[in-house]
């Protein structure tokens, strides 16, 4: 479904991604792990068109999307969340999700001037459905900036799903959460995000990774050092060294 061929990203002298080859198959839940600064977020940013790769090619569902601008990639069906939660703070919970939906409608100039939550520019029923699934319906009219952290993370995931994208990237969906909240997020990913969809999860919390992922890929210093089934990969000597060697063990 998504294929990276020798993808490179350099920031000055630093190779944040070093000739990464990666294949994401339709329907799987891929865990992307690695120590801090190993290039996970950079990989996500190059795939979603935040910035173009310095080299290599990226293709999605057979189309070469290398160097495309972000909005085209998003419209093609790759949605994402952000490690440092990005929401529209002065919009309500509902508006945040709905905005993501209507952004993709192209109705010409007249369509733009249609009054907002109307049928023509997005399905408001669908928005409420999604909010319900993520337990946000009671906060529908709350401004996003007034939500507590776990709810903001859930809102980000909800927003990513509203257009039913075939591929979703989650960047540390349980970052900063307590174990109970993490378990809840794992359940949501398992029950709501993963079915009928391909999903890539970036996470440091191994409980979540081992709970939801069907396959794992490990990055270290911008290189892919291991890939395979969760049990095999986490037992791998190189992976242990990448984490333990820098005193940065995954909290299993």
């Amino acid at each position: 479904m998504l294929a990276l061929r020798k993808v490179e990203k350099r920031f000055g002298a630093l190779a944040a991604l070093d000739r990464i080859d990666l294949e994401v198959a339709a329907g799987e839940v891929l865990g992307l792990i690695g120590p801090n600064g190993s290039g996970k977020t950079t990989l996500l940013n190059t795939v979603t068109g935040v910035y173009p790769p310095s080299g290599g090619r990226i293709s999605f569902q057979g189309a070469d999307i290398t160097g495309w601008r972000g909005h085209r990639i998003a419209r093609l069906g790759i949605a994402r969340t952000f490690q440092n939660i990005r929401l529209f703070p002065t919009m309500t919970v509902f508006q945040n999700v709905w905005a993501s939906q209507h952004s993709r409608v192209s109705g010409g100039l007249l369509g733009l001037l249609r009054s907002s939550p109307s049928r023509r520019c997005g399905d408001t029923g669908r928005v409420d459905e999604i909010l319900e699934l993520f337990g946000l319906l009671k906060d529908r009219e709350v401004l996003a900036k007034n939500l507590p952290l776990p709810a903001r993370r859930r809102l980000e995931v909800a927003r990513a799903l509203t257009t039913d994208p075939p591929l979703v990237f989650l960047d540390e969906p349980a970052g900063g959460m307590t174990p109970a909240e993490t378990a809840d997020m794992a359940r949501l990913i398992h029950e709501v995000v993963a079915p009928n969809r391909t999903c890539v999860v970036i996470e440091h919390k191994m409980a979540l990774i081992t709970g939801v992922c069907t396959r794992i890929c490990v990055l270290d210093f911008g290189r892919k050092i291991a890939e395979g089934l969760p049990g095999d990969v986490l037992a791998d000597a190189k992976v242990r060294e990448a984490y333990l060697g820098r005193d940065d063990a995954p909290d299993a």
Partner: protein
Amino acid sequence: MIDFVQNTVDGMMFGSSYALLAIGFTIIFGVMRRINLSFGATIMLGAYIGTWLHVHHQVSVWIVALTTLASTVLVGIYVERLCFHAIRRSAVLASMVSSFVIWMQLEEAAIHLLPERTYAFPALLAAGSFELGPFLFRAEQTSMLILAMIIVGVLHVLLYRTRFGLALRAVSENSLAAAYMGINAAWVTLCAFALVSLMGGVAGYAILSTDAQITPFFGLWATFKGLIAMMLGGMGSLPGAILGGLLLGVVEAHALWYLGNEYKDLSAYLLLFGMLVLRPGGLMGQRILSREALAFRRV
């Protein structure tokens, strides 16, 4: 050829006053990540208070100079408290607009102080000129260049050789981290403001005594020349401010000579616009604007 060199030299002399103004902007921007639009008006009001003493009480030139400096610092502190300290850090736009309305306020205060449009400004040095080979140097402009070099030297020592300088640089690198290190960022900011106002006062005094007159428009002039020179050099960069000031002076001098008076300011804005479109970071700034850096900061 001689004309060209003479113009360049004149431009650099004039540019050194732009550089001094730009340094003020750049330090404030570095420490606060905000722009103080009332910087020029602060200097103008300070100088007006000095002139007022001179006009109404015939005090000596030295007292005018000292009053100018002291009142510039006081006005600067007033601006800092009202427009920057009191407004939370993230409200960049509010601070900018606030400093703008305070500029209007200061300008009106100056007009009430001395209601007529133009006043003679007392100079410390007598005007004069000397020749070096085929080139003509004006004494007051030459002393401006020397003054600029002295100020930059003192500033360099202050920023890189003292504890205060260290604290100031720490705050401008990362104010949050500096706060964790036990630096009182609010205090450092206030001191930086006072320092910059003092420097602005010196620069203002020097510029005004070169012009030998003062009008309320000086505030606008100083703010925009300083802002342009800073942007040309690169925001937040000290060497950039100096280079930007000199570049602005030289370009204006050539435009004035070859094209005429009405092209002088036009050339300055054209230079600025071109620089922003082609090289937004300015002469010395990194390309801070790139998409990658933006994403890194926020993703």
